[in-house]
């Protein structure tokens, strides 16, 4: 029982990371109907940049805002190079392929800069577990949950309370109408990509002390976070947190009871099943197709 509870704790921490990445998918999908297939690589870059900063002697907490800034820039670059031209020529194939291409390039560049081996990220908090309801939990896991929730709340607050956020929400609702109201929707889309990558980079810096850091850490994370985004529905905020936790717990328990080699399978199978039976997600509303 204690082991199970412990697995649930680490599952929740992992799940919150998925939720943050999935949140990033939602941001761009809502403004532009596009996704960054290299989202996982944005996370990896965040972790790598964070590690470099920490190794240069910077304090972990000082590093976090810098990683977010780096993520903002990286997301903006992705949008300008890979997404904007494709939106212009209305090519779905175009943005899928070009975000994949950029993802590969980022991964390859990271391999060449930081090497192919997984690196250890020093933990900013004590690594001895504390007791919570009779099971062990790492302080870092609590930080991950708190950080993820804060990040999502901050973006939501920005969207709801500031005038710039209102422009983003307006673009969410109706891109063409927002454009006619004088909102620079192109800029909003760039901004949503910047935010999306920033959340991913932040998630990378959060999760890195719990796992190992390496150039390939992003690929599967990005895919599983997509599963979460689908399970939660690409338009539902609450859904991704629930979906993330479901997946995270499913994964830690599979890893423990079956084999760590299979730990990625539940998420992927869940993705296939949800798309086969309920493409709009468990929490999303299905759109009415117009003819």
């Amino acid at each position, binding site marked *: 029982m204690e082991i199970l509870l412990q697995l649930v704790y680490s599952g929740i921490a992992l799940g919150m990371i998925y939720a943050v990445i999935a949140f990033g998918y939602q941001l761009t999908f809502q403004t532009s109907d596009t996704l960054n297939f290299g989202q996982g690589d944005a996370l990896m870059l965040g972790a790598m940049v964070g590690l470099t900063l920490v190794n240069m002697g910077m304090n972990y907490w000082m590093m976090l805002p810098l990683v977010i800034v780096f993520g903002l820039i990286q997301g903006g670059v992705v949008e300008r190079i890979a997404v904007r031209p494709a939106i212009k020529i209305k090519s779905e194939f175009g943005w899928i392929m070009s975000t994949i*291409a950029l993802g590969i390039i980022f991964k*390859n*560049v990271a391999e060449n800069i930081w090497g192919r081996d997984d690196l250890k990220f020093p933990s900013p908090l004590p690594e001895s577990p504390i007791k919570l309801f009779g099971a062990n939990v790492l302080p870092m896991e609590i930080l991950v949950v708190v950080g993820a929730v804060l990040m999502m709340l901050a973006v939501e607050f920005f969207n709801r309370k500031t005038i710039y956020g209102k422009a983003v929400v307006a673009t969410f609702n109706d891109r063409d109408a927002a454009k006619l109201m004088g909102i620079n929707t192109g800029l909003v889309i760039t901004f949503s990509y910047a935010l999306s990558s920033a959340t991913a980079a932040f998630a990378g810096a959060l999760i890195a002390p719990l796992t190992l850091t390496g150039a390939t850490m992003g*690929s599967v994370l990005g895919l599983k976070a997509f599963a979460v985004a689908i399970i939660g529905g690409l338009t539902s905020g609450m859904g991704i947190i629930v979906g993330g936790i479901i997946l995270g717990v499913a994964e830690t328990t599979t890893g423990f009871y079956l084999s760590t080699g299979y730990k990625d399978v539940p998420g992927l*199978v869940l*993705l296939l099943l949800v*798309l086969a039976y309920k493409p709009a997600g468990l929490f999303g509303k299905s759109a009415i197709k117009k003819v």
Partner: protein
Amino acid sequence: MMNRKTLFAAVIGLALLAGVPLFTANSYYVHMVITIMIYAILLYGLDIVVGYTGQVSLGHAGLFGVGSYTAGVLFMKLGAPLWVIIPASIGVTAAFGALLALPALRVTGPYLAMVTLAFGTIIQILINEMTFLTEGPLGITIPKPSLFGQKLSEQGFYWLVFALMVLSLVVVHRILKSQLGRAFEALRGSPVASDCMGVSVYRYKVYAFVISAGFAGLAGCLYAYSEQYISPNTYNFELTVLFLLAVIMGGRKTRSGALLGAAIIVILPKLLDDLELFRIVASSLAVLISVGAVVGVLRKMTTPKAMAIPVIGTIALAGFSFWLESITDWRLSIFGLMILFVVYYLQDGIVGFARSLFARKSPAADSVSVDGLDTSRDAVMMAAKAGTHETGTDLLVANGVLMQFGGLKAINQVDLRIKRGTIHGLIGPNGSGKSTMMNVLTGIYVPTAGSIVFAGRSVVGRTSSDIALSGIARTFQNVQLFGEMTALQNVQVGLHHTFDSNILDVSLHTPRYKREEKAAIERGMGLLNFVGLGDLATEEARNLPYGKQRLLEIARALALDPQLLLLDEPAAGLTAPDIKVLINIIRKIRDHGITVILIEHHMDVVMSICDAVSVLDFGQKIAEGKPAEVQADEKVIEAYLGGTAT
């Protein structure tokens, strides 16, 4: 149907390819060409999914792996011979393709890409973990196969692969030129219209994936023999992306493009091992692009702004190549850059680009010869299977139809009775629910409540393609043609139901297939002549003027041999003379015994040809009767002109 010159060039090219082992004894080169041909087999299949149905598959490396491992496991566990292993690999992989298609059925675009990616990842995990079957990361060793009791040499194996590659080429080419290929292309053009032409999107998506997977399986199996050792790491995400790069770089929808693409992804990594060579290639590319840009700008074919990025990009690449110590580690970045370049500057691939340079017509354009065909026969006449019934009986009866979207009742308790052999007008102000009614009748929406009976059978709950095949054809308010297909091919998609040929008939060109294909060209041309588009048969639908597109939609709908034809604002955007032609065509259609429901805002059209008219307003039927009666109805006048009822 293939152009004689192309055929000649293809034969010469293949003959040269067959002779490679005679020119060189160097097994390094022989093995390289074998790999190219194996990849080409896979790419033919991948092109069905990517080029024709227009979907991104990131799962083909996984399918390739399934093929390899089927071969490897069968050999290791059972010592199975080649003639068992090849069909088994194809069969097993095709089954996996069907499995992949199941979740892919309901989704498209990015979702489908993610589904296939998840699928590919699962396959790789399974190969890694199921050590009892696959030996896991250790991999499987498999020797060159034996044929007729003799172990094949590298040369012998070369010719085996060559023969299978040519066979695949012919089969794929035939499939794609047949009704199956047209169905695949139609999915890309407009899924909704495909369904409404009786070409089930679900079914043909599965077919496309299964056929595509079959080729991936064949390629995978040959790859296992060729490498003589397989391990899970080969079948990773990078390989999938490489395959996609090959398809789009070579050129979608061409077989030569697949071969070229395969050659690029096999040879390029080897080139990249040689830094000196890469520097030369990068520099000459930079020079080439710069010169091309200057010429292009001078000839006003392009603008300096559009050319800035490729020029700067290639020059930067050349500079980068001189800064590098080793290029091998940067292989993936180079591929990534190539994808970006191809996606934005070479959308039709190298083959497509070469074609446009020589300003040849698109391949579809020269593929129709009507010599010896009787296209003057009345094509619609054959459509009128409704003619045996008496006119005046009810063809379609809708009772209490309710269509609710959330809180909005788009159609509210509407009854509709359509009599056989009549033209029934359906009018009403914008947003009154007319088009929704069409969508309910054709199965695009399932009504919230109410019953709809067509020719004695309920329509509710059946799929669009099933309803279409039972005799309801339609046109669309926003034209839904298959843009990249010719006018004739569009109509032929409507004629899909006249084909009984299966994939074997198509591959072997059996008499049955030849007969059906000939009949389809004949009927198709006849229908085009009926709406006056006979001269434009080889024009791509997207290039037709708007009015002609509307007429083409009618011809395509008639190809279904419908009993009931739904026309959704056929006169919208037409000029006055065009409208006259249209009125004539609609009358002729009715005279052939086909019942017509006409949604139209042009009142003169409605009043002059309709036998009965129903009027909708805010989802409710407010009047019905003869055109003149309806015109005088107070409620109708109020609905159109406003004011309060007294």
